[in-house]
């Protein structure tokens, strides 16, 4: 590679005293001195969370209040720090959601291990796990920092769902039950 | 004021003697040097006292010169000591015996 020497522009006398630059700097800082603050006063004011923010992972329900997670354990598998621990379970056959068959019996996310990478959200085939806007997780003990299923659903709430595939499946099943095979 | 010239001169003499003692006693070049300075200060004290008690300014003016010379001397002397230390890694006079050995 050719070496191209770049000549530095020689400084003028005024520049060599640095005084004009210092005065310029002083002007700049003074402008900021009188300008309004740019910081948030955190506990009272909260930052606006941008879209795509990766906060605390949570579990969500669909608009019908059904838990979306079917405990496929892909998030547990993909989780790099092994923060997720799922105990799969079967939905009782007399439940209204029996057609989904599977739901997590226990779903723990150890927030001391979580690195907020978002791979769980990425991999979830049911769009049940979401890294939402919650960014402040605190606790006094290690146990407190493990989010159990109840807490995860409490944090996650309900997200709109464009597909509602399990509802469609249920409808098809009902139709089949009434009208023979199809 | 009951303190007379004698008292100042005596004080000056003792101070001078202390400096002299230090020069004789100590091995550390820097401390010897400080003791030399102490002797200089003792002489300035005597000069100032003479000046004051004789109502003349010449002693004080001499102190001026002594201070100036002392400053120059310290600068040069310390530079020599540092140069010495660089060469010999010591400033103890009893170890500076290259000519004896």
């Amino acid at each position, binding site marked *: 590679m050719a070496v191209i020497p770049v000549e530095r522009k020689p400084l003028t006398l005024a520049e060599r005293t640095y005084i004009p630059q*210092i005065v310029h700097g*002083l002007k*700049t*800082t003074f402008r900021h001195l009188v300008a*309004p603050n740019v*910081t948030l*006063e955190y506990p009272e004011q909260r930052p606006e969370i941008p879209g795509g923010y990766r906060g605390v992972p949570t579990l969500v329900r669909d608009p019908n209040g059904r838990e979306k997670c079917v405990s496929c354990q892909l998030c547990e598998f993909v989780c790099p720090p092994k923060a997720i621990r799922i105990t799969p379970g079967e939905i009782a056959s007399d439940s209204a959601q029996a057609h989904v068959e599977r739901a997590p019996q226990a779903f723990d996310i150890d927030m001391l291990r979580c690195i907020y990478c978002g791979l769980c959200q990425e991999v979830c085939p049911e769009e049940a796990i979401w890294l939402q806007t919650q960014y402040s997780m605190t606790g006094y003990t290690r146990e407190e920092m493990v989010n159990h299923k109840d807490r995860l659903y409490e944090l996650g709430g309900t997200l709109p769902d464009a597909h509602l595939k399990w509802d469609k499946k249920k409808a098809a099943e009902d139709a089949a039950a009434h009208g023979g095979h199809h | 004021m009951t303190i007379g010239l004698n008292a100042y001169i005596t004080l000056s003499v003792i101070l001078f003697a202390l400096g002299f003692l230090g020069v004789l006693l100590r091995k550390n070049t820097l401390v010897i040097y400080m003791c030399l300075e102490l002797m200089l200060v003792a002489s300035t004290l005597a000069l100032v006292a003479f000046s004051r008690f004789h109502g003349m300014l010449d002693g004080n003016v001499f102190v001026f010169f002594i201070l100036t010379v002392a400053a120059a001397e310290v600068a040069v002397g310390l530079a020599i000591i540092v140069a010495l230390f660089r060469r010999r890694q010591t400033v103890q006079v009893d170890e500076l015996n290259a000519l004896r050995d």
Partner: protein
Amino acid sequence: MDSSLYFDLPIWVRVTLQGVAVIAVLFPLAAACSMAERKISAWIQGRPGPNRTIPPFLRWIPVVAPVLQKLGLFQLAADGGKFVFKEDPIPGHVNKVYFVLAPILAMIPALTTIAVVPFGAYLDSAGRAVPLVLANVDVGILAVFAVGSLGVYSVILAGWASNSKYPFLGGVRASAQLISYELSMTLSVLPVFLWVNAPGGSGTLSLFDVVQSQSQPGFWGGMWYGVLMPISAFIFLVALFAETNRQPFDMPESEADLVGGFHTEYGAFKWSLFFVAEYCHMIVGSGVFVLLFLGGWHPLPWVSLEMVSGWLHIAGSPVLTGALATLLFLGKVVAFIFFFMWVRWTLPRFRYDQVMTLGWQKLLPLSIANLIAYALAIALIERA
């Protein structure tokens, strides 16, 4: 108050009272400076700064309490309390005597120099200005320099006694810097005194006389030396920054490369002594600069205290004129301290070799040239 009652007191009582009064002003001022520093740095950086602390028992006060809270004044009290009450550790490996001595030594020059700095004046019955100063010695500026130069011991001892690399490096840097810039500083004020002591005047090194000589009648007489001798003022200013270890020159601390510099091993009260001493230094330094170059307690160039007190019809009252002068002086000092902080949060730190180059190769020749130029100019003026 009958002032004669005060002057009847024995001299040592008066001196003690005056000393205590000055310290009682200087210390809170230094503390307030530390808070001002935090607020100003915050504002410059677009932050609000400390604005939360408030003792619960004052919360009920309607308007004042929130304003004070926003200004962070209670934070100041909390910080002070913390410094006093927190554990004051002495590391095991230090030289204990000098380790404890160093912060005390830092305070001594800072508090002593204030004695010869006049902070105001009043007009006696004859209409002459009389300085408000603890010790109106003839060699004022020299005393300031002499005692101020003792400040180097605290830094060098703190660095050495800490028996640890970074503090030692900080101490060495600081002492070299202080000694270096003292030269330019001293040389830079010489033109001022040459001017003041121009043949015909009485030989003096008193700061009071310098101030008074800036309020003479006439165009030249009423001019501040800051205008008359901008180069001197500039050199003095730069050297002052270096002597007080303020930002572009805060080599001894330079936390980026030396952790905390000479006070790395210090904590709690002893550290706060260094801290307060630095601000005392700043205050005294600002005061000297104001006296030398910004007309002291005279409100404006060509507008002297006497004229103002005449306009306000308070010339007859020593107390009122004294208060006015002190206020004017303090106002200038505070503005100058603000300038200190403003510069600190604007300029980056010099590299150490740059500091030395600037001190020895730039400022020193410049101040010598400046001295020669003014000496020649004064001689020519005299001749003319």
